[in-house]
């Protein structure tokens, strides 16, 4: 079966072109397919939604621009929800290059919901050292952050005036693309028993299901899809929802490639071929 052999030995650049077109075309010609909300994202939403107005949450946006595609829209959506519910947010980051992103996420959400600095939220900025900061907040927030990002002492900021540790916070929300999430579970939740919600990259998401079952996490927002679900829950249309058509199409293409690859191999084997020769197993061809 020569055509099967040819198919299996197809130039990888044709596959790349397919994937590239799959990502670009739905952005140019959107279908606005519906985004279904999954239970874990709803659980995160419900946990935040159940906080009474005036509650205080600590939001740590622990990511840098390389993975902002997944976590930045999530940050804007979660912040928007908090502001809409009049939940006061004390925001920070454990990544130096997350400072600009965190500030941008806050200002975007604050502008949309009419939230005001120091009255509705405080921006503490960056502090280095994962465990140091997490333990430090548990003992004395002012030891870690004597002043906010703009140099204002925490005692002069209404949102932070009466907050000195996790005990005065109703929830900790961590949006992270790294092991920072594990440390928030170990320290903020495990050691200081703070209610915790995590948003993470899709790569990490499946690893946190055991912590949902054990109630160490109240909710989980995974990747750009999770962010799109959250955008739908708060009824906004951000970058995450805009990207979902492309996400669907590229997934379809990848699944199609897997099925075609396996079918071609099957046909090739039945007709006594060797399964496509060098093509099988090589991904860099």
């Amino acid at each position, binding site marked *: 079966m020569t055509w099967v052999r040819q198919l299996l030995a197809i130039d990888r*650049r044709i596959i790349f072109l397919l994937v590239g077109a799959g*990502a*670009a075309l739905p952005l140019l010609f959107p279908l606005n397919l519906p985004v279904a909300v999954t239970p874990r994202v709803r659980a995160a939403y419900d946990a935040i939604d159940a906080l009474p107005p005036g509650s205080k949450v600590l939001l740590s946006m622990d990511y840098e621009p390389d993975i902002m595609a997944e976590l930045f829209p999530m940050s804007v959506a979660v912040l928007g929800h908090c502001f809409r519910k009049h939940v006061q947010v004390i925001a920070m980051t454990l990544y130096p290059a997350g400072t600009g992103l965190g500030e941008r996420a806050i200002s975007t959400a604050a502008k949309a919901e009419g939230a005001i600095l120091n009255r509705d939220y405080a921006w503490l900025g960056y502090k280095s050292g994962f465990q140091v900061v997490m333990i430090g907040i548990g003992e004395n927030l002012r030891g870690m952050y004597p002043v906010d990002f703009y140099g204002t002492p925490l005692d002069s900021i209404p949102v932070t005036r009466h907050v000195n540790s996790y005990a005065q916070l109703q929830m900790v929300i961590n949006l992270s693309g790294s092991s920072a999430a594990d440390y928030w579970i170990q320290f903020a939740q495990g*050691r200081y028993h703070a209610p915790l919600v995590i948003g993470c990259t899709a790569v990490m998401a499946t690893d946190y299901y055991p912590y949902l*079952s*054990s109630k160490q996490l109240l909710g989980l927002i995974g990747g*750009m899809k999770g962010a799109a679900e959250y955008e739908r829950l708060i009824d906004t249309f951000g970058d995450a929802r805009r990207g979902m058509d492309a*996400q669907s199409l590229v997934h379809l293409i990848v699944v199609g490639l897997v099925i075609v690859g396996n079918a071609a191999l099957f046909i090739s084997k039945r007709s006594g071929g060797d399964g496509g020769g060098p093509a099988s197993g090589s991904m860099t061809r």
Partner: protein
Amino acid sequence: MTLQTWIAAFLTLCVFSFLYKDNPFYRFAEHLFVGAAAGYLLAVQWQNVLIPNVWTPLLHDHKLVVLIPLALGLMMLARAWDKGAGIARWSLAFYVGIYSGVAIPGYMQAQIFAQLADAAKPFAPGWGAVNSALVLVGLLTVLAYFFFSAPHKGVHGAGARVGIYFLMVAFGASFGYTVMARVSLLIARVQFLLRDWLHVLPGP
């Protein structure tokens, strides 16, 4: 359209050019990335770790205790020379010791006890009991697979075999989510090129 957007778009295309074939543009971007990433990391460490934790306490607050981490850090640099390995060993010993000590209570509390406690709770009522039982079977059989101190034979072997099936489903789920993550990053880059650079998409 700013200079920043043009440079970012150029570098984005340099990296994507690798998809056609390895070429000098990609190699330029690759080498720039390595240098820029290392330089940024060093600058951040200087500004956010060495200045607040060494420089300021030592020169402004006269806290001599910071000489200890400073000495340990400088000893680490001795590793750059072949004969300095013995000196650097002290810094390594301190660092590894601290993180070993941190790992014990952290993992015990959050990963071992909390997960075992959840695994040992009563089954959910009704049909949920089937799922609870499956989770328990999955946990025990995967642990059986990871237990290499005895050969995988007999009941242990059968259990380990079932454990592999659970692992494969979990890895399949992870693979699906990994594809999702990488595709999301690609979409964001395409959004950048089409919207911020070429302006063929409406703004956010």
